[in-house]
C-alpha cells in the first residue's frame, strides 16, 4: 500500500460498504490494522533532521559546553601523573611551586566542570524541550489536518500513543541519550588521545579494543531495533484497548464484559511485557559483552605497562595516569548501551510518527487560497452547485453515480431516503469532509477545494447527530461555533434554539464545567448545544445531518421554529428521518441507491404518488 491509502474513504455513515468496501479493518495485511503506516525510506532520519535544524546553533553551543566540561573533567589524571612524576620530586627538593600549581589546577578544573555541567544541562534541556514542543505540535496539527476518513481508520488510541509514549521515547533520547552519546564519543576521543600521548603503545592497545566494541555495538543495534519496533507496536495496541474500554465503560458494565476484557487486555499486555523483557535482555547481553572486552583490555594494558615500568622503560606516574584513564575510558560503555537503548526506542517511535506525518490529507488545503465572492443579496445564503459530481471508493464501490444538482441561495432543502441511500455522503461532499472522485462542488461558483479552511467554514457548517462535548464549560462548547463570540451572542444562540432553560438550570449556568459536579448533560441536551454552536457560526450554508434525532418532539418543534427564522435567507440542507423537518423545507430530494429519484416542492410530492408520498404517509401513521 502506498501513502495514498488514507485517502480511501471508509464505508461509513449511511452507506453500506460494497463487497470491496474498505475501512472495516478486517484485512489481516491492512497497514492500519498492524499499525505500520508506510513512511518513505529515510523519512525517520529526515524527520529528526528537520526537528533539529532550527536549533542547530544552540545545539552546537550545547555540544561545546559539554566538550569543555569533558576537557575539565579529563585533566584530572594528567595532574595526578604530573604530581607523582614531577611535583613530588620537586617538593622533595623544596620547590613547592609545581605542587601548588597542581592544587590550583585541580581546583579550577573542579569548579569549571561543575559550572559547565550546570550550563550544559540547562542548555540541552532547552534544546530537547524545543524539539519536543515542535514534534508534539507537528503530530497534533497533522492529525487535525488529516481527513475524517483517516481518523475513522487510525483510531484515537493510536494517535494518543503517537503523541504520548512515542514522543516520550524521543524525550528520553534527547534528555539523556544524546548527552550520553556526546560524552561517550568525547571521552573516547579525549582519552585515546591522552593515552597515545602518554605512551604510544599503551594507547594503541586501548584503541585496538575499540574494534570488538564497535562490532558489539553493531550487533546490539540490529537486534535491539527489531525488539523496540515490536515493543512500540505492542504498547500502542495496549493503549487502543485501554482507551476503547474507558470510553465505553457503560456498555462494558452492562454487558458484563469486565472479565472478557481483562482476558483480552492480558493478551496485549503480555505481548508488551514480553517485548519489554526482550529489550532488557538484549541490553544485558550487550553489557556483559562490552564489560568483558573493556576489562580484558584493562588487564592487558596494565600487564604491558607494568612490565615496562618494571623493566624501566616507563615512568610510574605515566602508568598510574594510564590506569586512571582506562577506568574512565570504559566507564561510559554502559552508558553507550543506554544511549543505544533510547536511540532504538526513539527510532522505533519516530518511524511510527514519520509514518503518520507522511499521510497526506485526502482533503488537502488549497495551494492557492481562493475567496468567496461578496454576497449577492442582503441575505447570508449562497448558491450550491454539484457539477458532474461522482463519488466512489478508490477500490471501486460507487456510492454516488454522476449527478448534477443546483441549490439556489437561500433555499432549504430536505434530503430523505432510506438508510444507505447516500444522503450523508451528499452532505459530506458539501461540507468537504470528502472530495468528489469526479466533478466539482461549487459555492457561489467557487470550487470548495480552492477555499482555505476559515473561508470554507464561513461558507459551510455541518451539524451531525453525534454531539460530542469537549471538556470545558457549556459556554466554551457553544463558542466553538465562533470563538470571538461574546457571552450575549452565546446566550442568544442558546435561547433561539431552546437550550437556554436547561443551561440556566445547571449549577453554574453557562459556566458549568461539563465534566465537573452536576455537569451531566443528556443526549438531547447535547444536541441542543450542538445546534447553538451551529447558529453561532452563522454560515452561508448549514447542513444538519440527523441533528435532532435525540430530541423530544417539543424540543424538535422548538428547534424547527428557531430554524425557520434562522434559516431564512440561508441555504440549508437538512437530513432527517423525521419528516416533520420537511415542513420547513422549500424543496425535497428523495434519494435511493445514491441517486436523486424525486425532486420537488413538498406539497407537490406529498400530493403525488411517488416514494415521498409513501414515506410521508408512513411517517404520519407513526405519529398516530
Amino acid at each position, binding site marked *: 500500500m502506498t501513502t495514498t491509502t488514507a485517502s480511501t474513504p471508509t464505508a*461509513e455513515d449511511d452507506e453500506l460498504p460494497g463487497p470491496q468496501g474498505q475501512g472495516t479493518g*478486517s484485512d489481516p495485511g491492512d497497514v492500519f490494522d498492524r499499525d505500520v503506516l508506510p513512511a518513505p525510506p529515510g523519512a525517520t532520519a529526515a524527520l529528526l533532521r528537520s526537528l533539529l535544524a532550527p536549533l542547530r546553533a544552540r545545539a552546537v553551543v550545547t555540544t561545546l559546553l559539554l566538550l569543555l566540561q569533558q576537557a575539565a573533567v579529563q585533566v584530572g589524571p594528567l595532574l595526578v601523573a604530573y604530581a607523582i612524576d614531577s611535583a613530588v*620530586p620537586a617538593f622533595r627538593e623544596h620547590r613547592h611551586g609545581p605542587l601548588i600549581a597542581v592544587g590550583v589546577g585541580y581546583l579550577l578544573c573542579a569548579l569549571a566542570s*561543575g559550572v559547565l555541567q550546570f550550563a550544559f544541562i540547562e542548555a540541552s*534541556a532547552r534544546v530537547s524541550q524545543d524539539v519536543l514542543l515542535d514534534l508534539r505540535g507537528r503530530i497534533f496539527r497533522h492529525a487535525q489536518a488529516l481527513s475524517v476518513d483517516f481518523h475513522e481508520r487510525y483510531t484515537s488510541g493510536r494517535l494518543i500513543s503517537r503523541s504520548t509514549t512515542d514522543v516520550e521515547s524521543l524525550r528520553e533520547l534527547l534528555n539523556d541519550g544524546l548527552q550520553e552519546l556526546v560524552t561517550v564519543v568525547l571521552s573516547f576521543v579525549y582519552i585515546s588521545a591522552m593515552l597515545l600521548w602518554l605512551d604510544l603503545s599503551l594507547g594503541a592497545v586501548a584503541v585496538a579494543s575499540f574494534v570488538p566494541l564497535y562490532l558489539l555495538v553493531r550487533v546490539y543495534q540490529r537486534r535491539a531495533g527489531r525488539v523496540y519496533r515490536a515493543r512500540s507496536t505492542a504498547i500502542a495496541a495496549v493503549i487502543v484497548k485501554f482507551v476503547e*474500554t474507558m470510553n465505553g465503560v457503560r456498555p462494558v458494565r452492562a454487558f458484563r464484559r469486565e472479565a472478557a476484557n481483562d482476558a483480552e487486555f492480558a493478551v496485549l499486555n503480555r505481548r508488551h511485557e514480553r517485548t519489554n523483557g526482550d529489550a532488557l535482555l538484549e541490553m544485558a547481553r550487550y553489557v556483559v559483552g562490552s564489560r568483558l572486552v573493556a576489562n580484558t583490555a584493562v588487564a592487558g594494558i596494565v600487564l604491558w605497562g607494568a612490565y615496562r615500568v618494571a623493566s624501566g622503560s616507563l615512568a610510574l606516574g605515566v602508568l598510574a595516569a594510564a590506569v586512571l584513564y582506562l577506568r574512565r575510558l570504559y566507564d561510559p560503555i554502559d552508558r553507550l548501551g543506554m544511549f543505544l537503548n533510547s536511540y532504538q526506542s526513539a527510532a522505533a517511535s519516530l518511524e511510527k510518527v514519520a509514518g503518520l506525518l507522511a499521510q497526506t490529507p485526502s482533503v488537502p488545503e488549497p495551494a492557492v487560497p481562493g475567496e468567496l465572492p461578496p454576497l449577492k443579496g442582503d441575505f447570508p445564503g449562497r448558491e450550491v452547485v454539484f457539477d458532474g459530481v461522482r463519488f466512489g471508493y478508490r477500490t471501486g464501490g460507487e456510492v454516488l453515480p454522476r449527478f448534477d444538482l443546483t441549490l439556489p441561495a437561500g433555499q432549504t432543502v430536505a434530503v430523505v431516503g432510506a438508510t444507505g441511500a447516500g444522503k450523508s455522503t451528499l452532505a459530506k461532499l458539501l461540507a468537504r469532509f470528502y472530495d468528489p472522485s469526479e466533478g466539482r462542488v461549487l459555492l457561489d461558483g467557487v470550487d470548495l477545494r480552492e477555499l482555505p479552511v476559515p473561508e470554507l467554514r464561513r461558507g459551510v457548517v455541518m451539524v451531525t447527530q453525534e454531539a*460530542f462535548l469537549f471538556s470545558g464549560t457549556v459556554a466554551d462548547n457553544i463558542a466553538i461555533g465562533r470563538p470571538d463570540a461574546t457571552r450575549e451572542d452565546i446566550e442568544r444562540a442558546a435561547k433561539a434554539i431552546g437550550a437556554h432553560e436547561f443551561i440556566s438550570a445547571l449549577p453554574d449556568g453557562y459556566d458549568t464545567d461539563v465534566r465537573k459536579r452536576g455537569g451531566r448533560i443528556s443526549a438531547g441536551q447535547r444536541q441542543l448545544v450542538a445546534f447553538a454552536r451551529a447558529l453561532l457560526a452563522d454560515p452561508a450554508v448549514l447542513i444538519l445531518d440527523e441533528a435532532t434525532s435525540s430530541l423530544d418532539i417539543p424540543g424538535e418543534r422548538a428547534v424547527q421554529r428557531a430554524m425557520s427564522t434562522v434559516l431564512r435567507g440561508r441555504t440549508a440542507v437538512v437530513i432527517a428521518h423525521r419528516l416533520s423537518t420537511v415542513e420547513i423545507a422549500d424543496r425535497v430530494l428523495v434519494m435511493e441507491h445514491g441517486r436523486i429519484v424525486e425532486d420537488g416542492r413538498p406539497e407537490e410530492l406529498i400530493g403525488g404518488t411517488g416514494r415521498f408520498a409513501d414515506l410521508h404517509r408512513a411517517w404520519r401513521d*407513526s405519529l398516530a
Partner: protein
Amino acid sequence: MSVPVRTLAVMPTTRATTEDRSAVRTLLRLWPYVRPVRARLFTAAFVAIVASCTGLVIPLVLKWIVDGPVADRDPAGVWLGALYLLLLGIAEAVLFGIRRWLVARPLSHVEAEMRAGLYGHLQRLPVAFHDRWASGQLLSRGTTDLMLLRMFLAFPLTFLLVNGVTILVGVVIMLMQDWVLGLVILGPAIPVMWTCAVFERRYAEVARRAQDQVGDLTTVVEESVLGIRIIKGFGRHRSQARAFRELSVTLRGTELRKARLLAMIWGVIVTLPELAIGAALVLGAVRVADGGLSAGTLVAFLSTALALRWPVDSIGFLLAMSQEAATATERYFEVMDEVREDDAVAPREGGQARAADAGLRFENVLFRYPDAPPGSPPLLTRIDLHVRPGESMALVGATGSGKTTLTALVPRLHEVTSGRITLNGVDITAMPREELRAKVAVAFEEPTLFSTSVGENVLMGAPEGAGRPDLDRALAVAQADFAHALPQGTDTRVGEQGLSLSGGQRQRLALARAVVGRPEFLVLDDPLSALDVHTEAAVEAALRQVLADTTALIVAHRPSTVLLADRVALLSGGRIAAVGTHQELLRTNAEYAHLMSGDFEDTEDSR
C-alpha cells in the same frame, strides 16, 4: 472569551497534592506488586553490590602491582597481577550481566501486572467515576507513569542501594589505606547530602506538576480525535492546535524548571567531590614526598576515589528518578484507592416473592448523583413504578428529565440514593451485579460497539454457548441483516467504537445485542432514534414479538416508539407524574399530549 477553545482544553482533572508527603512512604506502597519478584530483585541487588565491590578491589590489585612486582622489578609477579585483574574483570562483567538478566523479565512483569490491575480496577469503578475523569488522565497513568515505575525498580531502587554500599565500602577502603586522606575525601559528604534533601523536596513538586500536565495534554489529544467531526465541521482545527500548543508550552516550562533543578544538583555533586579529590591529591603528594606514604597507595587511593565518582555523581539523577517514581506511584494509587462497586450482596429479605411483586418495581426511589453539589435537589424523587411481568412500559419525559438516569439505575450503573428497585420481588442490591446484569439487557442511546467482529459484538449480550442461530435471530429482530452483507459477513470487525458504521447501523447492532440473550428484563434507551421511518417500522414489528413475553422499560420520544409499549409512564419534575395507556394519557394529561405532538404551546411543562 476571546479564545474559548483555550479554556476548553486547559482543564486539569487532578490537582497536585500540596501536603507534605514522604517519597519513601509513597514508594513503599509498591511492595505488594514487587513482592512476587522480591527474591530475584534482592538477589540482583546483592549481585550488583558484589560486582560493584569487585570493581573496587581492582585498584587494590593495582596498588599491589605497583608497590610489589613493579617496584621489585619482578616480571613474573606482573603476570600474576594482570591475571588477577583479568579474573576480577571477568567476574565483574558476568555479575553485572547476571543482575540484568535476573530482573529483566520480572520487572516487565511487575509493570504489566500493575497495568492489568489498573485496567481491571478502572473497569469496575462506578460509572460516576468515569464521568468525572478524563480518560487521558487515566491513560497517562497506565502508560508513562508505569514505565517510570519500571525504570525506578530497574535502576534507582537497586543503584541507590548498590551505590550507597559501594560508596561506603570505598570510603572504608580509603580510610584503611590512609585515614587522613580518607577524611579529606569525606569532607563534602554533609553539604552534598543537604543539597540532595533540598533538591528532593523541590523536585517532587515540579515532577508532579509535569506529570499532571502530560495527562491534560493527553486529554486534549483524545478529545480532538473523538470530536474531529465537530472540529472539522466548524473549521476549528487551528484554534484546537493553538490550545494544544499553549498546554505544551506550559509543559515545556515545567520541564525546564525540572531541568534547572537537576542541573543545580549535578553541578554541586560534580564539583564538591572533585574538590576533595584535588585536596587529597595535593596532601597525598606532600606525604609521598615526605616518605610517609607509598606511591602505590596514592595511586590506589586516587583510583578508588575516581572509581567512586560515578556512584556519587549518579545520586542526583537517581534521586530525581525516584522522585518521579514517587509521583507516579501517587498518581497510580489515586485511582487504585477509589472504591470499586462493592460486590457485597444485601441479604434477601422476606423469603418467597409474592405474586404482586413480580416484574420490575421501583419503590420510593430517590436519586441524586453522588457528586452533585450538596443541597441540590435530587434528580429523581419518590419514583414509584411497577412494570408487570411481560409488560412493556414506555418512559416519556422532556429532554433532560432524567429518563436515561432512571434506566441506568436498573442494571446498577448508578446506585439509588434511597428507596429500592426489585426484580420479581428481589431487591437488585440483593443479587450479585453479574447476575443482575445477566437478567437485565440494555441498549443505550449511544450505541458503543467494540473493536471486534460484528458477531461478537452482538453475542456479548448472550449467555455462554450462544451461537449462530441466536445471532441470526437477533440480527433479524433488529433489522440488522446488513451485517451479512459486510465484507466478511458477521465476522467483519468494526473499528474502534464501530465508527465505520453509521449511527443507525450501530444502533441496530446494539439493539440486537440487547435482545440476543432473550433476557427476562429489557431496558431500552431511545433505541430507534437514528432509524428512518421504514426501518423503524420494521424493527418495531419484530420487536413487538420479542416484547410479548419480556418485561421491558423503554425510553421513548415518539409516538411510534411509545406504541411498542403496553403502558406509558410520564416522568416529570423528577417524579412519575402519570401512568396509563398512550390514548388515556393523550386525553387526560396535557404535558404528555404536548410531548407527543409538540402542540399545545400554552401547556409548556413547568419543570
